[in-house]
């Protein structure tokens, strides 16, 4: 084992472990504010594309043209990426975001499709008066 490692490797590993510990501490301290109501915000790039009320089960399609398509399945208390035209399919494997699980997920209340630049956010309502959200039936976009 000695031939694989040298003295300063321990320093490098120690620094990385320390960074992870600091990040974990910050996340624990800051935490998240819980809420009982939420809606879905869909972003393309950093532009807000649509806001969708949770509730009735349906599929929202984000079609950016040239074969770039993401389909989002909205459920009673959350959503997930049903399908995507991207090559790696990481967004589909990120599973469902719900009010019950978003604090425990790696990407918390987000689902990210980096190749198609589509991000989905579970916006937890803090109880303040919000303007009414546009209801989307099938969500096909005009680009």
């Amino acid at each position, binding site marked *: 084992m000695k031939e694989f*490692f040298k003295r300063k490797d321990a320093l490098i590993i120690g620094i990385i472990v320390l960074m992870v510990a600091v990040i974990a501490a910050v996340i624990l301290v800051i935490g998240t504010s819980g809420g009982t109501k939420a809606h879905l915000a869909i972003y393309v790039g950093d532009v807000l594309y649509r806001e969708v009320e949770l509730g009735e089960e349906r599929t929202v399609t984000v079609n950016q043209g040239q074969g770039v398509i993401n389909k989002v399945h909205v459920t009673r208390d959350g959503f997930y990426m049903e399908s995507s035209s991207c*090559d790696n399919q990481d967004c589909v494997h990120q599973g469902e975001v719900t009010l019950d699980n978003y604090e425990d997920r790696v990407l918390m209340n987000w689902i*990210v499709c*980096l190749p198609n630049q589509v991000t989905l956010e579970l916006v937890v309502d803090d109880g303040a008066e919000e303007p009414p959200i546009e209801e989307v039936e099938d969500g096909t976009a005009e680009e």
Partner: protein
Amino acid sequence: MKRSAPLSARSIAMFGLLTAIALVLGYIESFIPITQGIPGVKLGLSNTVLLYALYVSGSAAGAWLLMVLKVVLSGLLYAGVQAMIYSFAGGILSLLVMMLIKRVPGVSIVGVSICGAVAHNVGQIVAASLVVTLPALVLLRYFGILLVCALVTGLLTGIVAKSVFKALAAGGVLKSDPTVSPAKKKKEAQKSASGQADAAEEKAPQSARPADLPKKESDPS
């Protein structure tokens, strides 16, 4: 003005082979799911090829060319063109950091590999944050997970690279293990030479005449 020497056929062949190996390793690791769904987490097996280029060829230009070819060709062949942005960002930062850390005395190839893996993830996150907007807390959590994965995968690829160098040196493909410092090689060579001398002295018969004593007339030799 001094003209740079043209690439030898051997160098061209070697870099062609290394590029092919990096592409195959990148393709194979796409079938090994370490974590489902977390963007950017992978084994990084093709990093062992970059480490080989850095340590064996010693050519910085060659290592950069290898990285660019791997990113472009893998994007065109299987990873997808959209993924190239993130791969480039990660690849550039990773190679830069590995080349710098390699110069620091007291850091092994495993340490270099770990730093390269961490830098790769940092580069990817920076590129991702320019493309999509994520809150700071989510980015921080994502980065923490990537750090842990980089530590494990960097450790693994570093150990694999070191084992490959050892085996190639033992098999005579490489003249010596490039990760062993010249001072250590000299020490080991001296140790091995004195060990051989001790073994020869033990085997030598008791009645043998010392070489510096003159021969007797009756001595048949």
